[in-house]
């Protein structure tokens, strides 16, 4: 294509080439746009739906279990040290459950740190 235009005349050449170049740039931009949109639309949501649902579910469940476990462990230790048997376990298990729920709410984004702190 470039050879053909060059043969016709030198005065016309720059404008022709510029026009061709800008047209090509425009086409490239359009294609890039659609390609970008495609990759966002196609791979993005599918990935996030499948894996992040699984990952999120797993994350939330571990958060809750971790809270309860820590509460139970601390309560049990306090009972052992202070000899306050069942009370430490009872109280800290409940606190641990509350902490677990708080963890889950934070992990799920229902309540952010800021919201609670402001």
């Amino acid at each position, binding site marked *: 294509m470039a050879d053909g235009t060059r043969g016709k005349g030198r005065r016309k050449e720059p404008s022709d080439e510029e026009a061709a170049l800008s047209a090509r740039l425009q086409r490239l931009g359009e294609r890039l746009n659609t390609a970008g949109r495609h990759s966002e639309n196609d791979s993005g949501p599918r990935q996030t739906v499948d*894996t992040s649902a699984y*990952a999120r579910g*797993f*994350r939330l469940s*571990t*958060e809750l*279990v*971790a*809270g309860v*476990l*820590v*509460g139970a462990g*601390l309560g049990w230790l306090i009972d052992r040290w202070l000899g306050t048997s069942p009370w430490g376990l009872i109280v*800290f298990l409940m*606190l*641990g459950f*509350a*902490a*677990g729920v*708080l*963890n889950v709410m*934070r992990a799920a984004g229902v309540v952010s*740190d*800021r919201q*609670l*702190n*402001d």
Partner: protein
Amino acid sequence: MAADPIHQFRIVDLFPVAKIGNTEIFFTNSSLLMLVAVFGLTAFLVIGTARKSLVPSRLQSAAELSYEFVATTIRGTAGAEGMRFFPFVFTLFMFVLTLNMLGLIPYSFTVTSHIIITAALAIMVFLIVLIYGLMRHGLHFFNLFVPKGVPIYILPLIVAIEILSFISRPISHSVRLFANMLAGHITLQVFAGFIILLGAGLGAVGWIGGILPFAMIVILFALETLVAFLQAYVFAILTCIYLNDAIHPGH
């Protein structure tokens, strides 16, 4: 052996390293894999960045991509100030990612499927958050546990819950990585066991029927690759979130 899904997690002593009291310390297959990961990673990054060409080679491009990926993650979660922890988070992410990926190679060993490894990493993060927070903010760091604007009569309860929530972090942090890797590898092995059971039990028909679990393994393997990456990413992003608390405890 092939049908036992737990067998793959067995620690094998390779040779003794030291003896403390009555406890012999062995160099195990787990240590071997960790060494492979460390040397492999170092080689990857050193060779990848050795020739800093403007048009990067594949290796350089991969090294730069991994840098960019972790850097954007840190900036997004812990802010620009979190970048001082970049070496730590980057090491952690690449280490966990490499171990997860190495574990997917058949006949290899998954280091991150042992909770002692993930717990050690999570406790390290926890201690760094605690120590750095205390060093930088002194006792103001404990403002993390005292939310503002809470009526005084329920404040003790809230503080107790916040402290428990803080302590529970390394548990959920470590269990998530460990359980994901463990569950995934057991699932793979169970499905692989189906093929052998079918083949041994039903002969030729069984081997043909074994195509079904084999197809399942292929699909699961793709999923496992994704999980291996995703869990390394989640581990890194949670580290960033926790470090963010150490950097800005007041919010």
